[in-house]
């Protein structure tokens, strides 16, 4: 091969580079390791994290059981090692799976169109807000303080230099739901979108219908955010929303210290030309048989460049595939039963503790810790190999001595009793 290219040494292949751009040293990275050593290293690192069976953290990432088929299917080389399905004739597997994904997301959310997925929920939300601005031609976004605090930070980062004014509105201290009076104050003729999350960061179900009416009366769109996808199995879908942005981590995606996850972006039919990201559409092949392909690509950056709807040029295909497998396995009945189990577990523990908010809750709730601080409770739980909840004053300084707790189908009664005991209840 070297002869063919007219070189004597491999190094000749970059001899044309000027000396000042060549690296003359050797990289300070230890010599290559064997498979066994690599596995051993990661096993050792894995053992340095709390690796216990019980974990009561939620707040956007949830411990749910992962059916084994999710990994079995996502490990198939034909899915794992293929590129974005630009060449439709040899990508029908990925394209068909994405088409099914888009359909299921529409069925769950009550929207007409869903894209092939986004990086995660936290980046899907600002994309939804910017989409609302393009649709309405307005420049302000009103966002509830009950939306995940890190999602709101990302919204700030994304919109800071695009002339967007972000206003936050308050929650009702008694119910933990959106304070409608505060929302009304945040609205005016420049508001492109009202952004709410339900169940919200406190686990409380919002009154989306009423909020939608207020938003629509001022000509603003409602962007509905969800972080706990399991809730869609039981809760009324956000039909009154115009755009839905969410996180699918709960659908067979491991917590994995925060990623990779898969975000949802879905909307009403009339906004389809403004939705960023990839879309798969149904069509026919030259022989008239059903086939699928990427479509409406003219909105995207590789054609539109600086006029594109967004710079996103990927979806989370493999992660979305795992979520699709999850949805297919549980199906219509299973998703409901799973959601009902989550509800029952959370209400079992919620019933033993003093809850801060009276609004209806799904599988998370804010508990007042009383005499012991959240840190003290978590320390006690650590001794019995339980990861406790999230101290809320980390994000809400006004919520001292409060802890966000999440219960899923994986929370056993024994462990929940253990948590209640650590509270001194």
């Amino acid at each position, binding site marked *: 091969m070297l002869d063919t290219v007219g070189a004597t040494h491999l190094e000749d292949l970059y001899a044309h580079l000027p000396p000042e751009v060549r690296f003359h040293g050797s990289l300070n990275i230890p010599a290559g390791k064997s498979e066994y050593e690599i596995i051993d290293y990661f096993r050792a690192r894995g053992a340095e994290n709390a690796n216990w069976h019980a974990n009561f953290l939620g707040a956007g990432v949830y411990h749910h059981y992962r059916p084994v088929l999710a990994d079995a299917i996502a490990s198939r080389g034909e899915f794992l090692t293929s590129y974005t399905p630009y060449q439709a004739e040899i990508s029908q597997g990925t394209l068909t799976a994405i088409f099914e994904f888009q359909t299921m997301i529409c069925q769950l959310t009550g929207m007409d169109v869903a894209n092939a997925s986004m990086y995660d929920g936290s980046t899907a939300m600002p994309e939804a807000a910017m989409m609302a601005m393009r649709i309405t031609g307005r420049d302000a976004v009103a966002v509830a303080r009950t939306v995940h605090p890190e999602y709101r930070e990302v919204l700030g980062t994304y919109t800071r230099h695009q002339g967007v004014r972000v206003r936050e509105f308050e929650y009702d201290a008694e119910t933990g739901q959106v304070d409608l009076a505060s929302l009304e104050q945040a609205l005016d003729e420049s508001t492109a979108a009202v952004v709410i999350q339900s169940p919200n960061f406190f686990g409380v179900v919002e009154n989306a219908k009423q909020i939608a009416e207020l938003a629509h009366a001022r000509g603003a769109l409602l962007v509905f955010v969800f972080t706990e996808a399991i809730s869609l199995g039981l809760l009324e879908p956000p039909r009154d929303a115009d755009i839905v942005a969410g996180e699918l981590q709960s659908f067979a995606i491991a917590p994995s210290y925060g990623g990779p996850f898969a975000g949802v972006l879905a909307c009403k039919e009339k906004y389809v*030309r403004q939705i960023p990201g990839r879309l798969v559409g149904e069509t026919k092949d030259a022989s008239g048989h059903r086939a699928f392909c990427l479509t409406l*690509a*003219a909105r995207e950056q590789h*054609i*539109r460049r600086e*006029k594109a709807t967004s710079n996103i040029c990927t979806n989370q295909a493999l992660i979305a595939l795992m979520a699709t497998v999850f949805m297919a396995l549980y199906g219509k009945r299973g998703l409901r039963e799973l959601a009902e189990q989550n509800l029952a577990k959370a209400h079992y523990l919620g019933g033993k503790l003093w809850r801060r908010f009276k609004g209806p809750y799904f599988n998370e709730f804010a508990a007042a810790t009383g005499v012991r601080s959240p840190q003290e409770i978590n320390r006690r739980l650590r001794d019995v190999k339980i990861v406790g909840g999230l101290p809320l004053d980390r994000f809400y300084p006004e919520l001292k001595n409060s802890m966000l707790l999440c219960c899923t189908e994986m929370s056993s009664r024994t462990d929940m009793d253990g948590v209640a005991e650590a509270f001194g209840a």
Partner: protein
Amino acid sequence: MDPENLRYTKEHEWLRVEGDIGVIGITFHAQKELGDIVYVDLPKEGAVVQQGKTIGSVESVKAVSDIFTPVSGEVLETNSSLADTPEILNSDPYGSGWLVKIKLSDPGEAGKLLTAAEYQAYVGTESS
């Protein structure tokens, strides 16, 4: 093939003046370069537009091209049949594939546009 009675722009639009109304479309060359057209985005009727500004876009599977209005005025009518059959832009760009009708606010603008011969000469240099 580019009709003699029309005026043209370097952005590949054509203009036909009918009294104080200007009918606008894209040229044969433009539709050929874009390929199969799948979507046309047009301004709202009643919108006031200014010569040389973007008033919409034409999309094919692989490309998007902005529409620049060759004349200023008020949009009287847009070609509603393009919503369901954008392919007529490919099959009949100078006829049923017209885009918008504009009430001219400055009829003098039309005179400054290219003639068919000038446009053909321009397309010839651009593609070589």
